[in-house]
Structure formats: C-alpha cells, structure tokens
C-alpha cells in the first residue's frame, strides 16, 4: 500500500498583494504596507513592534489577542490588517504611558494577583477595559459572563473578577 500524499499544488500558493494603510495605534499614526492576508495581530506584533498583544490560538478561540478598535473589543487575529485603514486601535501598551501611572484596572490586576504567567493578561485587560466602558459598574455575574471568552490556562479567573470589580468601584 503506497498512497501518495502530495500537497504540492501550486494553485494553493496565493499571489501576494499588498496595500498601504494608515491607522492610529495608541494615539500614534502609522503608515504601513501590509500583505492582503496579514492579520492586525501580525501587523501589530511583527511590523509595529507592539508585542504586548499576544498570539495564543490565532483562530479566534481564546481572546488573548483582544484589542480595542474604535473603542470596541475585537479579536486582532481575526481582523485583516488591510481592513483597518483609518481605524483607531488601542492595545495594552496604550493603557498607560510608558513609565507613568498605571490605569486603575492595571493596578487592580496587580493587587488582585489576576494573572500568573501573564500571557492572557493583555487580552483580559482590553476586554475588561471594553466592559467597563460599556458598563461602568458591572455585577460579578456580569463580569463573569462578559469575560468568559477570555481564557486563562493558569486559572487566575477569581483574581480577574476581583480586579475588574475593584477597578469599577474606583470609577
């Protein structure tokens, strides 16, 4: 029995086209030439050197790559970079000034020990930022429901709920 496994189909190799876009990330304007199939996640990490946003599943399953696009939480691994022309993007690097005071939410994450390895933390912070923008005083049940799409394999969930609750109380 010798079935041939041959995937060498040249038609499967997509022609590479690129597009020039302009977008705002954390208040800075960037101009970038991006291949048409590049995700926003890869643009941020590989072209703009903003590696705070993490790649975990790259399939929209885990929430780790969550960023704010025009104020709304979106999964950057499922967002094509070329679709972000003119967009206003906010990432974890934009939650506080470098070396400056942390946002109440960031500080609450530290105080509540709301992370262990920290790899999901940027996504958690961005989802929580979006939650508090939509609902400044969520109940614990509302926090749990809203945040259920942001997985944490270390199991820091109870600290995350505490942190968001604390941050919400600080307004």
């Amino acid at each position, binding site marked *: *029995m*010798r*079935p*041939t*496994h*041959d*995937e*060498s*189909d*040249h038609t*499967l*190799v997509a022609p590479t086209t690129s597009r020039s876009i302009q977008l705002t990330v954390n208040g800075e304007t960037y101009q970038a030439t991006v*291949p048409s199939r590049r995700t926003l996640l890869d643009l941020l990490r*590989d072209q703009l050197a*903003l*590696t*705070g*946003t*993490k*790649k*975990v*599943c*790259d*399939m929209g*399953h*885990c929430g*780790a790559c969550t960023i704010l696009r025009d104020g709304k939480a979106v999964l950057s691994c499922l967002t094509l970079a070329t679709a972000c022309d003119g967009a206003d993007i906010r*990432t*974890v*690097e934009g*939650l*506080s000034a*470098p070396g400056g005071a*942390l946002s109440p939410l*960031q500080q609450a*994450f*530290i105080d509540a*020990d709301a*992370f*262990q*390895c*920290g*790899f999901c*933390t*940027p996504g958690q912070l961005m989802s929580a930022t979006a939650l508090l923008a939509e609902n400044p005083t969520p109940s614990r049940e509302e*926090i*749990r*429901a809203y*945040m*259920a*799409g942001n*997985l*944490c*394999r*270390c*199991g*820091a*969930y*109870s*600290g995350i709920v505490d942190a968001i609750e604390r941050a919400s109380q600080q307004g």
Partner: protein
Amino acid sequence: MTRVVKTKVEIEGRVHEETVVVERDEPAAWEAGREFAQVGKSANRVDGRDRVTGAAHYSYDMHPAGLLYAAVLRCPHPHARIVALDTSGAERLPGVRGVLSKNNASDIPWYGGASKLFDEELRFAGEEVAVVAADDLDTARDALKLIKVEYEVLPALVDVEKAAAPGAPTIHPKGNVLVDEEGKRGDEFSRGDVAQGFREADVIVEGTYSTPTALHNSFETHGCVAAWEGDEVTIWESTQYIFGVRGRVASALKIPVSKVRVISEYIGGGFGSKGQTLKHSVIAPLLSRMTGRPVKYMLDRHEENLLSGNRGQTVQKLRVGATRDGNLVAIELETLCNIGAYGTWAASVPGPAQELYRCPNVRTYTLGVRTNLGSHSAFRAPGHVEGTFALESAMDELCRQLGKDPIEFRKKNYAEGDQVSGKAYTSKYLLESYDLAERLHADAGPPSLEGLPPGNWRVGTGMGSQVWSGGGGPPAHALVRLNSDGTVEVICGTQDIGTGIRTALSQVAAEELGVPLDVVRFRLGDTQKGPFAPASWGSITVPSVGPAVRVAAEDAKQQLMEIASYFFEVPADQLQIKDGHVTVEGREEGKRSIGDLLSEVGDYMIVGKGFRGPNPVEPLRTWGAQIADVAVDLETGRVRVLRVVAVHDVGRVLNPKGLESQFYGGILQGIGMTLMEDRVVDERTGLVLNANLQDYKVPTMADSPEMIVRAVDIPDTAANHIGSKGAGEPPIIPTPAAIANAIYDAVGVRVRHLPVTPKRLLETLVPAQLPWSEESGS
C-alpha cells in the same frame, strides 16, 4: 570550605543520586514562629508592572533584525515511512531562505536513539518532515505546499489496550511497552500479601477507572528564536529548563555548552510540558546557521496540541479491601499509561496507592504503553492526579458501604511514616489539613446556587486527599549582588513559569539581607548569567532554589558587615541591618545605607554566592485535602462545581498571595480534567480531532467556582533551612476525586471515567433512573 557530597533527589516519584558542590556550612533553619519582615507577607508580583503593560518580553516576542519565520511540514499519518521527499519546489519560492529535512540534515539522534531529528519513519501524525524558513510566516507556509512527499503508510495503534495486547504490530524499535533493565514488562511494587489481605477484607471495592489524555495548552506555545553571533548561538526559548535546552542543543550541534546561550525571561505557562527539549530547539539554530539569519520557530496551537506533550490517558484496575471496622487491608492496582509514540517513562500513578494510607498489603503494576500519538510529558503532578482519582473514589465507595464518615475513615487509615522506605517523613500535617478543610467547609455554610441556569439540580459534597513529593534538592545555585547604588540583584538560572518565583524568592533575599522588597531585582532565565538551577518542575523550585538564594544573601550580608565594620569602628558581629540600613546593634542613630557604604569603597560590588545543601535522608512529602460542593442537573447531566475548599501542607508559605493563586490554578485545571478536558482521537484514522482551544475545552471564567484555599503553614525545618516545600502541583491532585465523590453524593452515580461530560453522566443516570434508584452506581 568547598566539598563534594552525594545526595538523593526525588522528582515526581523518581529518585536519583546527585553529586553536588557544598560551598560552606549552611545557616540554621528559620525556626517555627519566627518573626519575619518579608517572608510570609502577601506581596504583589515584582514583575506585575511588566506583565500588565505589555513590557514583559516572552520568547514569542523576540524580533532580532533580519528575522526569518519557520513553518513545518508534518506527517499526516499516525505511522508512515517517507519513500520520496522533494523540497525543491519550496526552495524555489521567492522569500524562502532555507529548507531542512532528512535530505540535507545530518543524523542527529532523537528520542533516546529511537529516531532522528529528521527520520524516515514517522510514528505519529504531526511528526516533522521538513522545516522551511522564509521572510514571513505566510511565505513559509506557502512553501510547505510545494514540498512533494510520498509515504508508505504503516500499521498504527492509538488504543492503549490494543497496543499492549500480545500480537500487536510493533510500532517502536524498543517495543510497544516499557520494560525494565532486565527486559521485564512494566513496573511492579509489592508489600505484604495482597491475596491474604483480600481474604481478611469484609468489604471489597473493585472497578476500572480511566482518565483522559489532557493537553496542557500553555498559552505561549513551545518555540524559540535562534540567532548566531560568530560561533555562539542565542536561543530565546519558552522553557521550564534553560540548562536542559542548553545541554541538548550543544550535544546535538556538537559544540561546547558555553557556546549556547538560552534565555527565558518570561514564559507563558508550561505546566510540565516545557521541561523537555523538543526538536524546534535544535532545528531553529540549524536553520539560522544555514541562512545566516535569526529564525523564529514557534508552534501554532494545533501543533502545540499534537506534539508538545500531554497527560497520558490511564486505565486503572483497582481493588481495595477493608475490614468491617474500617481498616484498609489490601490495595491492588494495575495501570496502563498511554505514553505516546516516544515515551520513555510512566507517570507515578501507583504512588497514592502505595503511600497515602496505612495498608499492610499493597501490590501495584504499571505498564507504560506506546501508541502512534504525540508523546506524553509531565503535566502538573503526573500520575498522582490520575491515581488519586481512582483511589479516593474507591475510598469513598468503601466508606459509604461501611457507613463511615469520609474524614474519620481516612484518619483511621492514616499512615504515620513512609511505608515504602520504612522511614519517617520530614513532616506530615495531613491530619491538620483534614481538620482545617472540614472547619472551613462547615464555616462557609451551604454553597450558593445563585447563577445556575434552570434545571433539576441536585447538590452533593465530596472529598479527596493528596500526597506528593515537592522537596527538590541540589544542585541549585544563586548569586546576590549588592550594588553601590544600594540596589540588590539576585542572579539565578531558574525560571518563573508564572508561579511567582521571582517574587517569592525576592522576599527570601530581602528577608535575609534586611532590605525592602522593592530594591531587589531578580534576574533569572539566562544560562550565560545565572548559576545553575534545576528545571521548574516537580514543585521543586522554592525548596531547591530558595535555600540557595538565602545562602547567597547571607554571604553578601556578611561581606557588607565586614566592610561596614571599618566605618562603624566596631566588629562586624556587632552590626545589624534593617530596611537597608546598617547600624550598631541596639542603636537607631548613625545608620548608613548599603549604597552609602559601598560608594565609599570605590563603587564596590559585593557578590554573595549561595548553594542548596544536600537533602535529609528522610522522604519529603506534601499533603492536603479538598472538599468539593457540586450541583448536578438531572435533566441535562451537566455538573457545576459550586465550591472547592482546599488545604495543603506545603511547609512555610513565602508569599500567601502567590500561593493562593497556585491553589486556584491547580483546582481550575483539576476541574477541567474532571469535567471537560479530553483529547479526542479518531481510532480509524489515528488523528487527533480537537487539537485547538475551541474543541478541546478548558475551563472559562464561567466555570470558576468559589474557592476557599489555605495552607497549613507549618515550616518543615528538616526539609531545608527556609522550611518551605513545593506548592505548584499539590492543589490539582485531589480535585477530580473530590468532584467525582461529590457527584455520587448528589445523584448516586459512581463516576469512573473522566471527563464527566453531560453525555457520559446522562448515560449513567438513565439506567440509574433517579438518584434513589436501587440500580444507582455503576
């Protein structure tokens, strides 16, 4: 006076001897009841700011100039031989800078010599065929489609029982099952006379229990970035063991270890899977050398779940006998462990049966079985989670039949000393764990049912206990530097995989030095900077590295006092240091800071050296008990864990806040394994069907129950001089058993196969009809 000694070190149930350097006498142990300034106080993580701002740079984030990206062509069959391989199409694609495969790679032995870095015979779907390095990841992936491979498909086995059966096709050069040095199948342990024990038993519980293959799903996948500078290679690697990677890469590339620098400053989880060195750690440097460019080779989520390790499935045949008055008289356990294609060891599934309870007659037999699936690896208390699930389920069944209280029954069978070695333990506070867990559970009152969706919910309570190692040992070394600006640096080749080691061990250094925590900077995860430290596995880091850090701090403090003695004009032993300031003992005035003193002596830098001393001869164990409250919906078979109370004896607690997080995390992963986690394999094709985070279920925030966690917090001064034992693994161990027993309490169904999915529970509930049915139980 430097001397060399031999000492025994136990890691995850396996004991080996180490020959280690002892630099000088060790300090006296921090006694029980001692007042501390830093140790035992809840501290925020010292790297918290970096982790919440995106400033923490993980290996995945490294981006040296000229970076290439690697993508991998993987075998689509569970067992096949490459008949023909043509990579020329890939090599011609613009943007491709290098391709490595069996056609051009040198023969580097892998998997203990059973295979090669690029072998012709491939033993699981996902094994490496060719690796492409290109200017970007999309191009590298495109190139894979241009590689032509012809495979001869070979017989494959993915079922553990079929692979172990006589007459099964051989799938590994060393056979399908693990054999000992004399060629005997499996691993046998026996004490007393089990047959006689069962004759004495009034009640016998017997059953087959199974646990699923669980996938770690560390959030940062395995992988690395490799870059050469001259004849030296730097590898930013997501690993639990930088020195392990260094040694493996150096031997594979046949270069001295000092030419390999492995850096792992931040690691996105490991849970045991990153203690091993996978092929990418060697392939990335090879591709980088071939192309003259740095290479990033990170697994994607699918790959991570195929080949980076797993908690292998177990099938356990367990028989436990007790007398009418509740004394255990016999335990017999036969276990099959699925160790995947290239496993070389079996997890310590029989450990709890051998040690957790006093029992004169015990026989265990463990057989590691190879299958055409990704190899297993350590996964948070490997073996003990699985073995405890079966044993503690049987204990629950026994005490139901005998009409005993679960905790009283366990206390009655309390084992004073280690029945395997015949020695006393360094410490054992299991009785205290039972009492505290029981009290906390009682104080908490009935669990809240708030938030449960509508259903016919039944509530139940169950418990489980835990034994595990966690003593660590030498070699482990550390340096403590006191700088002339008053800052302190701890330098150590350990790793912080998310456990909070940086913080807890900074507390140890600050405590010993008498300085505030915020002047301490803990530098870890760099083979070129840090003295040797062991892998971050087996709950060994705190008890191995902690004492080394304390000794280094003590050495540095001594040197500081000798320098200060010149300026204070009193002997060094009359000086004290507190909050970073030196004074004459008993006086407050005239205090001088470390920076002030050192800048007067030519910006002198003090370097203190520390080591971990030899282990005591007594075995060391961690202990604990958990009580779970669950709700079961009779209509859907859905289980909700409402609350888990966890109490563990892990010696002295360094940072209560960090420890609580470890407990929460262990419990959560235990819930996952009990209720949802299961790598699904299609037996017909031998392929994994759910190698992603959508179909492989891990607990979400909505699954997180109320958790009440506590440490007994009594120092083990016989274990080491900081009195701490390991804490990372104990909290996952009793969780599945406690939940399974709580499910029985709720609906009268004895769960013997994990995970307890709604489907599986409904199938059991239907014949049992209702919890009060005569047919309930399995």
